[in-house]
């Protein structure tokens, strides 16, 4: 089972990474037992599963994903949200109202209007349907304060860290409430704007250095140094 690229090596689309008994993971594909890269990224072996951590990719929705979206359309009975995916997502009025929608009674723009940011969850999404959202869970709904920062969606797992180690450290060190969404957006609500800025700086650093080792330590160090300065 020869491999042609080692862990963390940079590959481009069409590069033959390995031949043999491997499973094709993210940003790869398998043909005649050979695994090729489909995006520019770094090779990552997870046992028999072979991934390429893409350095540039876009968000593709999955059921259960937490996402932040911007209202771009108010329709009769629903809102359309831009969730940074190929398709607009839909939030139905009945989901928000907790009863069926009545055109005579309900004025949707007065509930949510264009440019509102919403924290929501994807409840349905497949090849034939645009993503459908819900806000009927605790903590979901219109975002009324804090900061939203955008990073490459493929690097979200790094912001979370293994078993949440990175995000827990960020929360502890900055004192901010941090919500990490699968579509590459992170909501930060802090006690002061300075604390929020510090958290943004740390997340940007993770985005840029996602592929390096010892990142948690370095980010911790950076925050602690900045904290002393503040």
């Amino acid at each position, binding site marked *: 089972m020869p491999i042609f690229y080692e862990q963390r*090596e940079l590959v481009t*689309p069409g590069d033959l990474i390995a031949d043999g008994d491997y499973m094709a993971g993210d940003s790869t594909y398998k043909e005649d037992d050979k695994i090729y890269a489909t995006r*520019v990224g770094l090779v990552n072996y997870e046992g028999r599963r072979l991934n390429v951590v893409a*350095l*540039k990719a876009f968000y593709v929705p999955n059921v259960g994903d937490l996402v932040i979206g911007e209202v771009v359309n108010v329709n009769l009975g629903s809102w359309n949200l831009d969730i940074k995916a190929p398709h607009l997502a839909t939030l139905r009025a009945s989901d928000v109202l907790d009863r069926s929608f009545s055109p005579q009674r309900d004025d949707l723009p007065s509930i949510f209007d264009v440019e509102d940011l919403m924290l929501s969850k994807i409840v349905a999404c497949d090849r034939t349907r645009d993503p459908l959202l819900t806000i009927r869970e605790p903590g979901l709904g219109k975002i009324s304060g804090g900061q939203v920062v955008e990073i490459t969606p493929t690097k979200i797992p790094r912001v979370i860290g293994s078993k949440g180690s990175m995000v827990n450290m960020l929360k502890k060190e900055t004192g901010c409430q941090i919500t990490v969404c699968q579509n590459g957006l992170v909501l930060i609500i802090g006690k002061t704007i300075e604390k929020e800025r510090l958290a943004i700086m740390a997340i940007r650093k993770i985005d840029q250095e996602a592929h*390096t080792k010892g990142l948690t330590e370095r980010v911790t160090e950076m925050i602690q140094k900045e904290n002393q300065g503040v």
Partner: protein
Amino acid sequence: MTKKPLTLINKKNIRVDGRKLDELRPIKIELNIIGNANGSAYIEQGKNKILAAVYGPKEVHPRHLALPDRALLRCQYHMSPFSVKERKRPAPSRRETEISKVIRECLSPSIFGEYYPRTSIDIYIEVLEADGGTRCSGIIAASLALADAGIPLRDLVAACAAGKVEEHLVLDLNGPEDNKGTDMPIALMPTFNAVTLLQMNGILTTDEFEQALNLAVKGCEQVYTLQKEALKARYINVKEEVEEE
């Protein structure tokens, strides 16, 4: 036809621009140069100066064009009015329409369009200055723009022309050579030896055709190396950081 004296290739087999018969023009590639686009690339190949940008996958407009099982791929190859000696009228010509079609078809097998049904992927190629072989330069840039947009690809598509000028088989024809000789542009997905574009106008014997095909394939392989270098150069910092550890 009034024959001009043979001047494009001298007795030492050196071409007007100083190249050997099987030599590519100098190629310079830059990525991510159009901020609005999801991916973009710029190429200079000899005097050719060409931009390519990719938008998508995104919602299809107009909506009825959306395909239920794959992404709709659209391509527009366009020459700026000032890109040639005589001003080119800005409206798309029949030549541009045909080239747009063959470029779309040559990039299509490289794209995993089936992953993104009901979306469109739009490719725009703008020729700022033209000096022969613009469809090949455009394909080189467009394939890189697709990779830069993070669209999953089976392989990069490389492109290069071979042809016959003054009884010599040559690689990568420039403007004057293209006007005078036989031109045969091809596009190739080198990992799979897949020829995705092949056109020819001019005269070749069957044997010459086979030789020209081999020559063009070799040219594509050189171009492919340059394309990979350009993609990696964009992330050179990433590579260095990895190596430091």
